[in-house]
């Protein structure tokens, strides 16, 4: 379990209530096997939050615990970082080795594992993200989506329990984005995933959605619960997913049209076709 307890953070020396990207009393829990999407506009504090997950930043007040280990305790920091893998926005900034498999091996090598174990982990991780056939390729010859999958393989080779993605889809083309989201859907059984984005459509896949604004968690629940706020979502700098917007308009005119709020095109069309 990854646990944020009343976490406060600000950049600079003194607490500045107007500072952007600060955190003001953030509390939540991420369990293993759970897929959580964190939504927030630019400057809402979402990247600051991501950096707290593995101790890249530590709280000024409150605490962050990963499986009971406090991120402020330097003696457990490496174990925390093994358990919590971070993937960032720019696929070009995260790969360092000259071939794909060497890049994935970098983490396990630093754990001091025997070569046979490293081999096994690299092969497994590349298979998991569907990149086995690219193992000998140079990273710069890959597409953005492929690079992000290699970055995730590098994290998976550490056998993490949690995966935190900070706008990892933002620089991808639509096909690369679909590839990555599909992979997250497959990985959710094995690791806890915190996917940070401002793309509301990506939140529809989550078990749970949290909205952060001005450094505070302002909404939390299943996608259906959170998006029921309707147009009020704009006060947090977000928009409704397209299908939800259509469904809420229809629901106003036809109150018995839906038993639950449809989120996907399929759910909307099924509800329309069974209504009469």
């Amino acid at each position, binding site marked *: 379990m990854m646990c944020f307890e009343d976490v406060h953070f600000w950049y600079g020396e003194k607490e500045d209530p107007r500072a952007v990207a600060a955190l003001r009393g953030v509390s939540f829990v991420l369990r293993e096997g759970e897929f959580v999407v964190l939504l927030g506009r*630019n400057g809402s504090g979402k990247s600051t939050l991501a950096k707290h997950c593995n101790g890249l930043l530590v709280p000024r007040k409150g605490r962050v615990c990963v499986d009971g280990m406090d991120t402020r305790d330097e003696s457990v920091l490496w174990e925390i970082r093994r358990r919590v893998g971070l993937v960032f926005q720019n696929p070009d900034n995260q790969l360092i080795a000259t071939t794909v498999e060497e890049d994935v091996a970098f983490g396990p090598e630093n754990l001091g594992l025997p070569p046979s174990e490293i081999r096994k982990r690299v092969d497994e991780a590349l298979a998991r993200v569907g990149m086995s056939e690219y193992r000998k390729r140079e990273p710069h010859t890959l597409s*953005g989506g492929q690079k992000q999958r290699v970055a995730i393989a590098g994290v998976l080779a550490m056998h993490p329990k949690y995966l935190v993605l900070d706008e990892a889809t933002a620089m991808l083309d639509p096909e690369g984005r679909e590839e990555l989201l599909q992979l997250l859907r497959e990985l959710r059984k094995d690791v806890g995933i915190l996917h940070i984005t401002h793309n509301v459509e990506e939140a529809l896949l989550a078990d749970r959605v949290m909205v952060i604004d001005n450094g505070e968690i302002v909404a939390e629940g299943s996608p259906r619960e959170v998006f029921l706020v309707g147009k009020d979502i704009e006060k947090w700098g977000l928009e409704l997913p397209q299908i939800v917007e259509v469904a809420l308009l229809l629901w106003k005119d036809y109150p018995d049209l839906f038993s639950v709020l449809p989120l996907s095109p399929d759910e909307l069309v099924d509800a329309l076709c069974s209504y009469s």
Partner: protein
Amino acid sequence: MFILVENVSFTYLANTPFAVQALRGVSLTISRGESVAILGRTGCGKSTLVQHLNGLLMPQEGRVVVDGVDTRVRGAALKGIRQKVGLVFQYPEDQMFEETVFREVAFAPRNMGVEGEELEARVRWAMEAVGLNYEALKDKSPFELSGGQMRRVAIASILSMKPEVLVLDEPTAGLDPQGRTALLERLQDLRRQWGLTVVLVSHNVEDVARIAERVVVLERGRVVFDGPVREFFACEHRMRQYGIIPSPLLQAAFLLRARGFEVDPPLTPLELYREIEEKVLARRKPCSVKV
């Protein structure tokens, strides 16, 4: 027409073992005041094409003519083309370097010899055109601003040349929903108020639906579709064939069509809502039809 692209081919590293043919006999025309989206998957030649529109790249075969002038001219005439066709690259804020927003936006016109009050008027106009408050922001460092504001400063620094055509490569990439909506609305205003011609390069179907009237699709360096945006959005098979993923709205419309409802491809949630009311729900409840 304003821009003519005629049978243009272009190969990177031509005559080497690493040669990559990026454009193969591309022809299209763009008229004044149009808003055209250029679509296609990564590597289809979109960026190579737009760099031909202001003479950053010269065609190896064929020709590009802007307002009657072939882009292979040199000297003042080429400068004229680059002033008429403003190019905004992807993540343009990465190229900013000045100390204040004013200096950043003033850079291009100053190099064109604009000075004094006229320069100030231009900077003010360009900033206000993209929705930036001139007085509040002109003396700030561009790097203190939010992502959406920085993007708009970068676009203002091209607008300050008073181009007739604005070419934007993925202008909303990385912006949050508010930043994106604000930018797209400003571009629409610029078209309406100043008759600006807009060429948008994008993978994003929602952006295209919001501002383009016409779609040009490239695939492996060739134009494979050129027509009205609604016509392109009417065929799911064709969109997917060229690597364009339909928006959830379009997906819902395609599903409804497959079930026998003749809904037209919607560009906005409101349009899909109206289509459903009119063609799905009204048909089921004929007595509740609104007259």
